[in-house]
């Protein structure tokens, strides 16, 4: 259909995809690449990159930064993808029902999404994670909870506008049932914006997860990029790599995801060329 070609044409999208796949590879291969986990002490603290054969140096406790970065990738990707899948799942369901059936269900959903848009979601997230006890699960649950309204809003909008399109009206006139109409007529046309917003959400989720672990609200038993930055605060002034490297990893991952998202957007909406 030309979609793959349109996507592959954009250099930024290709670059983003390549980087992202590389990071996924590192994350998956971390236990194979490194014999010891990220918490084991390998030498003196605050060794600069290159010293003692440490690719990225060591942190305040003398742990191998490179191992930490690789394992951190696992956490970021896991949280990012898991919370996106959950948020998208809930969001699509709610948005579809509200957009297609309208009425009080739609009114209710609109109130809920407005509510979540207005209240400071990060503060709510802090409260939730703090109260549920910081862990991987509570992070994913929390991010899912504050993100699904965004997806629901977009899906609702799409369903609403598609439902009014003449080919959907035609399907009703032909006698197709609601489920068949949603599945064969509406969803395939609503998929592009859902895909695009999902790729954006993964990036956002990674940023949010790192913010939470920076503040000490991440899983205390797991090392993530955010907690690496948080732990390096005291050493930042003398050992720049303890802060710069994990942050750079976050930035590159999110940037890659945003490039992919932009590429998908352009490939799926060839009209929106500017």
């Amino acid at each position: 259909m030309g979609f793959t070609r349109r996507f592959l044409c954009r250099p930024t999208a290709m670059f983003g995809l390549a980087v992202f796949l590389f990071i996924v590879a590192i994350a998956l291969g971390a236990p194979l690449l490194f014999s010891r986990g990220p918490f084991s002490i390998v030498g003196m603290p605050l060794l600069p990159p290159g010293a003692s054969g440490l690719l990225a140096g060591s942190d305040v406790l003398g742990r191998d930064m490179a191992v930490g970065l690789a394992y951190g990738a696992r956490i970021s990707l896991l949280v990012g993808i898991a919370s996106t899948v959950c948020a998208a799942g809930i969001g699509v369901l709610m948005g579809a029902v509200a957009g297609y059936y309208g009425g009080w269900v739609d009114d209710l959903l609109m109130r809920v999404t407005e509510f979540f848009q207005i209240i400071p979601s990060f503060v709510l997230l802090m409260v939730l994670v703090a109260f549920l006890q910081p862990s991987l699960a509570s992070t994913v649950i929390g991010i899912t909870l504050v993100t699904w309204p965004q997806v629901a809003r977009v899906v609702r909008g799409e369903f609403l506008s598609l439902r009014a399109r003449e080919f959907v009206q035609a399907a009703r006139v032909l006698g197709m049932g609601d489920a068949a109409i949603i599945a064969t007529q509406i969803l395939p046309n609503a998929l592009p914006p859902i895909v695009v917003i999902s790729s954006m959400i993964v990036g956002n989720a990674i940023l949010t997860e790192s913010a939470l672990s920076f503040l000490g609200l991440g899983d205390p038993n797991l090392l993530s990029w955010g907690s690496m930055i948080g732990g390096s605060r005291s050493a930042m002034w003398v050992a720049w790599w303890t802060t710069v490297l994990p942050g750079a990893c976050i930035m590159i991952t999110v940037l890659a995801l945003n490039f992919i998202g932009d590429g998908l957007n352009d490939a799926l909406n060839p009209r929106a060329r500017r």
Partner: protein
Amino acid sequence: MPLVSIQNLTVSLPSGADRALATEGVSLDIGRKEIVCIVGESGSGKSITAHAIMGLLPRGVAATGGNIFFDGVDLLRQPADAMRRRRGRDIAMIFQDPMAALNPVLAIGKQVSEQIRAHQRVSETQALKQAARLLGEMGLGEISLKAYPHQLSGGQRQRVMIAMALSLSPRLLIADEPTTALDVTTQAQILKLIKHIQTMREMSVLLITHDFGVVADMADSVAVMRHGKIVESGATAQVLGNPSHAYTRALIAAVPRGASQLPPVSQIRPVIQVKNLTKRFRRGGLFSSTPTTTALDDVSLTLGRGETLGVVGESGSGKSTLARCIIRLLDPDAGEVRLEDVDIAHMRSAALRPLRRRIQMVFQDPFSSLNPRQTVGDSLIAGPRAHGEDVREARRRAADMLDLVGLSPQVLQRLPHEFSGGQRQRIGLARALMLRPEVLIADEPVSALDVTVQAQVLKLLDDVRRQMNLAMLFITHDMRVAAQICHRVVVMRHGRIVEQGSTRDIFAAPASDYTKALLAAIPGRQAL
């Protein structure tokens, strides 16, 4: 010497467009105090020619050859600033959709005064006074200068546009399809206004249109364009009476005649009976105080097999709402819709589903009525499949149905975007006919099509109706189209039926004033 002399104008399009040149070697003269029409279908280059005179070609489109002489000065070779000074002062232009053409956040008084002040050193107060006078001349004296465009009707907005255009007494007024987006009665008023102004101010007018009826009413001379070239031009009477080019003949022949062709069908076996149908719309949510609009008010009619009943009305008349209530895309608030003996107006969807086979619909917008991600074949068999028909059998019938509407079976594998508007309407018709309905509702099926294609699709609809002995309900805003294809006609206004009867009777001797106004507004009724 003519006021405007376009000589050999060639305008090129950016790469990736469906052809290289928008116009090719176009030559045209506009005399002083003359009304010239350029007529053509979509993609003919008529609009581009008009924009080229104003120097308003869109990005990527440029005039690459020829001259446009305005009073002896070649506009194409003028520096940008000199051209800007001419715009609005020597040459003015009005566009097709007045809602989109007016800045939504500026009051109309300001929009007029802004143009005056762009060319003359006057204070805001003086400019506003002039604006008030101009708007009064256009028949808008009652409207406040502080009104916003969205508060006005379509006709009023176009009058504002005209007031703006005339504010500095230009010598040339370019009107790019100025009435296409307006109701028929409003259209007649605006065209009359333009003619009146032209006489009063001794202006030249260049009128772009796709409707030969408008040409007949308005133009002193006409140029016919096709695929970027002028195929024929000359005095209107000459071109109309004695067209030399085949395309011109086709265009003139394609204009639906205002004279009815079809006798009423005797012995109608009513298959649809609408009784006291009422539909109201309430806008806003729980806390809104917006009043309800009554879209349908106690409407009753019958439709029989073998006949085509036209429902004619302007926008807001309720004709589309009527169609949608009959086919249950909307739920009526009161009244009956009897499909032979069964009242389907308030039936639940489960009971309604099997009955849906018997009433089908052809929609208005060919670019929105087919699922862009489904092949034509899948779209065609979707209906039969939903009613339990075997896939292979449905596919076989689909191929036959395509043949019936004049398309080849290879179309089955293709996607909608590969087809033109006319072809898509044929596919939409095939889709509706796949269920072998008894009733076919056609909701403005040709309004979005070019005139020559319109004629073909209308003929197809008529043939299909006869062949399959359908009862057809034909919704349209165009009386001429109704006359062409309908046996009987119902005229609607503000949700009520104003008049109904056989097409012949209504056209020959309309009873209500409104119908008379509708008929009088038909462009070119006398000349054609």
